[in-house]
């Protein structure tokens, strides 16, 4: 079987398993929906990581996506989930195109810090916006799909299913992208920018495109989170949110387009279990779990599933 098909088969299998598990375990649907939504943001971050860049400001787009979707619902009465998701994705992408001109010049910690500063500025602006509820944010009405409300027992399952499909589509698209010439540049840029330039490719432009893709995914994830949770607030742009994405991305590993989703789901489960079983010391439990993964799985959680040699 050629590698492309292998990924497709894996992803389809994962989609089927996810849907089945979700249907069998309704109490876990919500957590999984949120995890998949955040996974979209992490997937974008993985693209940047493969290029050698770390953004500590993906919260900016996550929040923009959520506020675009939430705002459309709250103030213009749009409730169709697909329209709202597309809006979140689009707004994030447009902003990323603009900011990308600036950020594409930056590398390493400076890229991380400038993106962090930009996202904190959005946070500050939203906290100042009392019409949008300041730090309290506002509630988002349950979305609809083709005129059908995504609330209640069955509605929740369909929202979960939608998240699964979105994640599947995101992963598949990114997988295909990695196999295009521009996509393959990611690793090359990470390893040696200079040689990429000698080859005749524009590093700047490549980074700009990747940045826009990553941010569109973050916006999509944000919109999906907003619809799922039913509430959005500026904390989505706070540095801790962006930091969480980075940590999940690193813990998950960059080995496969499925890794961000696996990492995200496991992270949410571990955190939830820690909350429930040691409400007073969940940070201790979470921190220890993170250290263990870093020490014993240096290539991330994904390396459990990948056999040696195929990880790279």
């Amino acid at each position, binding site marked *: 079987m050629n590698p492309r098909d292998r990924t497709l088969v894996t992803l389809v299998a994962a989609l089927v398993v996810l849907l089945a598990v979700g249907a069998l375990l309704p109490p876990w649907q919500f957590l999984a929906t949120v995890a998949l939504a955040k996974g979209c943001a992490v997937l974008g971050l993985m693209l940047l990581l493969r290029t050698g860049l*770390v953004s500590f400001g993906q919260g900016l787009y996550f929040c923009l996506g959520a506020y675009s979707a939430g705002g459309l619902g709250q103030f213009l009465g749009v409730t169709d989930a697909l329209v709202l998701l597309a809006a979140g994705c689009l707004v994030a992408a447009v902003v990323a195109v603009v900011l990308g001109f*600036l950020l594409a*010049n*930056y590398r*390493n*910690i*400076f890229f991380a*810090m*400038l993106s*962090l*500063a*930009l996202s*904190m*500025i959005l*946070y*500050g*602006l939203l*906290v*100042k916006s009392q019409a949008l509820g300041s730090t309290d944010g506002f509630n988002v009405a349950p979305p609809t799909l083709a005129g059908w409300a995504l609330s209640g027992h069955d509605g929740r399952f369909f929202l979960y299913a939608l998240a699964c499909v979105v994640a599947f589509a995101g992963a598949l698209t990114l997988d295909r992208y990695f196999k295009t010439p521009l996509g393959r540049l990611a690793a090359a840029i990470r390893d*040696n*920018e*200079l040689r990429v330039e000698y080859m005749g490719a524009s590093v700047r432009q490549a980074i700009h495109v990747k940045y826009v893709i990553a941010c569109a995914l973050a916006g999509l994830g944000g919109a999906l989170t907003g619809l799922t949770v039913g509430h959005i607030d500026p904390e989505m742009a706070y*540095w801790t949110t962006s*930091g969480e994405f*980075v*940590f999940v991305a*690193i*813990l998950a590993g960059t080995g496969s387009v499925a890794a961000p989703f696996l990492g995200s789901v496991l992270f949410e489960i571990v955190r939830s279990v820690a909350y429930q079983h040691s409400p*007073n*010391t*969940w*940070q*201790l439990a*979470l*921190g*220890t779990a*993170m*250290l263990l993964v*870093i*020490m014993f799985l*240096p290539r991330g959680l994904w390396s459990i599933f990948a056999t040696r040699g195929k990880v790279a």
Partner: protein
Amino acid sequence: MRELLPVVIDGAIYASWLFVVAIGLTLIYGVMKILNMAHGSLYALGAYAAASLGGAWFAGGHSPYASYAILVLAALIVGLIAGPLLERGLLRFMYGKDEIVLLLVTYAVFLILEDVIKLIWGVDPYFIAQPYGMLGNLDFAGLTYPVYSFVLIAVAIFIGIGIAWVLQRTRPGKLLLVVIHDREVSLAMGINVSLFYLTTFTAGAMLAAIGGALTAPTVSVVPGMGVEVIVLAFAVVVIGGLGSLPGAALGALIVGLVRSAAVHYLPQVELFSIYLVMALVLILRPKGLFAGFEARKI
């Protein structure tokens, strides 16, 4: 309308606080290339230790003026315990990993320490307010300022000059610069690099703890106090240029003055003034004001 003097004084006081809080971070980054997220926890540990030790000191009825020494002593103890423990016990196994993975490691440490602090001290606030008011007040431009704030400025200058002196004038300091410049060659020349790493991390931890210990008299020592400090210190250090000592000083001064001006003239923008400054500086000078040397990449 309003006189400029209070803006400058407030700015200078805040800047000196920022500098003391941020200097350990830039030192550790400069030498070890670790952005230490646990810096905030070490700061909080320093504050807690100062409050506990200082509280016991006052309860024992000892000389109140010696309490300043007690604050510093508490910070040194925290640094001497936590520094080697973290560096020898954890970080040294991580050298050679990606900067971002090291950041993640220190973040995990931060999470763990947050709960450890809670387990040791509980969630109730601790106070060690006496040293703040004991030195009396000074009047400037019609406003009252505690002398303690000016002591803080003096301490910041002293620490800055002290570190510069160690780096420029002493043999270990010069060797440290060599280690910063090229780790492999230093090793080949027989420099005990791991000892330098241990010392640097311990010194950085001490500085973080001193920041906390000196802040303790002005606040109540509570859980979560280290969280805000992390990003603030990051911003200062990034504005100045990572790993640069004069950069941290200048970064602190700029942020201090801008924030103070915002508070006096335009309180609405205080919330994101620091991030605006950070974004502007990075846009104008992508590597901060005092860019460190370039990492090798051929």
